[in-house]
């Protein structure tokens, strides 16, 4: 399985993502934002970081990069595209997934482990994950998911919510919402479920000596689903 990780000026989780992808069997290529062509890929990842210093709105500049035309075409033809953290912010700015990510409700940069409940397993990202709840890491200032009422209705009607913030038992409640996101949304799909944007970083949970293992579960499962 071939993956591509896009590096934008200011990306800082691109190499961690590559380590994670390689660890679980992907042949990965790092792709520079100014390139026009995407290498042949089974998965494209927009990594976390602070592309273009978060100028104007997080992800807005990166969403207009040269490489993004190829990424958008790839996604629109059914290719798997995953945006993590700043990558999620870039995805919403392209319009590939609906909504926006606002400043966290309590204006704090949040850096901690959280639990997320998988809301939809009928897709290549979460199919066959045995767990209902995963422990991931978040580190963001703008992760407060917002969309219009009409968009929310569409998102719910199409079962586009991927994961919600919850407690360790999978209870999705306001008090387990770290940043003020509507409906505790931590990640969403496009309608077709080939594009996933999420704030948590699975690539930070791939080594028991450093953190947890739930990222390993996620990546192992992902590569199997793509085979």
């Amino acid at each position, binding site marked *: 399985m071939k993956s591509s990780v896009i590096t934008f000026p200011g990306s800082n989780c691109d190499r961690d993502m590559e380590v994670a992808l390689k660890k679980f069997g992907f042949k990965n290529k790092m792709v520079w934002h100014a390139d026009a062509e995407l290498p042949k890929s089974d998965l494209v990842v927009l990594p976390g970081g602070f592309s273009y210093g978060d100028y104007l709105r997080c992800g807005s500049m990166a969403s207009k990069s040269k490489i993004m035309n190829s990424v958008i075409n790839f996604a629109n033809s059914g290719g798997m595209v995953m945006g993590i953290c700043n990558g999620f912010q870039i995805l919403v700015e392209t319009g590939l997934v609906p909504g926006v990510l606002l*400043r966290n409700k309590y*204006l704090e940069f949040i850096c901690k482990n959280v639990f997320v409940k998988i809301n939809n397993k009928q897709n290549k990202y979460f199919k066959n994950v045995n767990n209902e709840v995963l422990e991931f890491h978040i580190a963001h200032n703008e992760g407060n998911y917002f969309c219009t009422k009409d968009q929310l209705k569409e998102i719910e009607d199409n079962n586009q919510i991927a994961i919600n913030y919850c407690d360790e038992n999978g209870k999705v409640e306001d008090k387990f919402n770290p940043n003020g996101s509507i409906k505790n949304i931590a990640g969403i799909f496009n309608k077709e479920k080939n594009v996933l944007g999420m704030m948590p970083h699975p690539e930070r949970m791939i080594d028991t000596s450093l953190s947890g293992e739930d990222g390993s579960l996620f990546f192992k499962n992902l590569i199997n689903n793509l085979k």
Partner: protein
Amino acid sequence: MKISIIITLKKDVLDPQGKVIQQTLNGMGFDDVNEVRQGKYFEIDTKHNDKDKAKAKVDEMCKKLLANLVIENYKIIDPK
């Protein structure tokens, strides 16, 4: 021709920064502040001399990059 744009958050979008500014103003003794909403201001020097052409281009820029219409409104100010 220079064109100015003001971008504001839509009414029902939470503005945590505006809220903190309001609380600070209240704390400083400005009891007369009900609410603060923070926005953005741009000045764009375009190559156009025709006002309508310049405004039309800036309108396109707002839609494509400067504003996110899910959460923001924009207003193009008539050049003097």
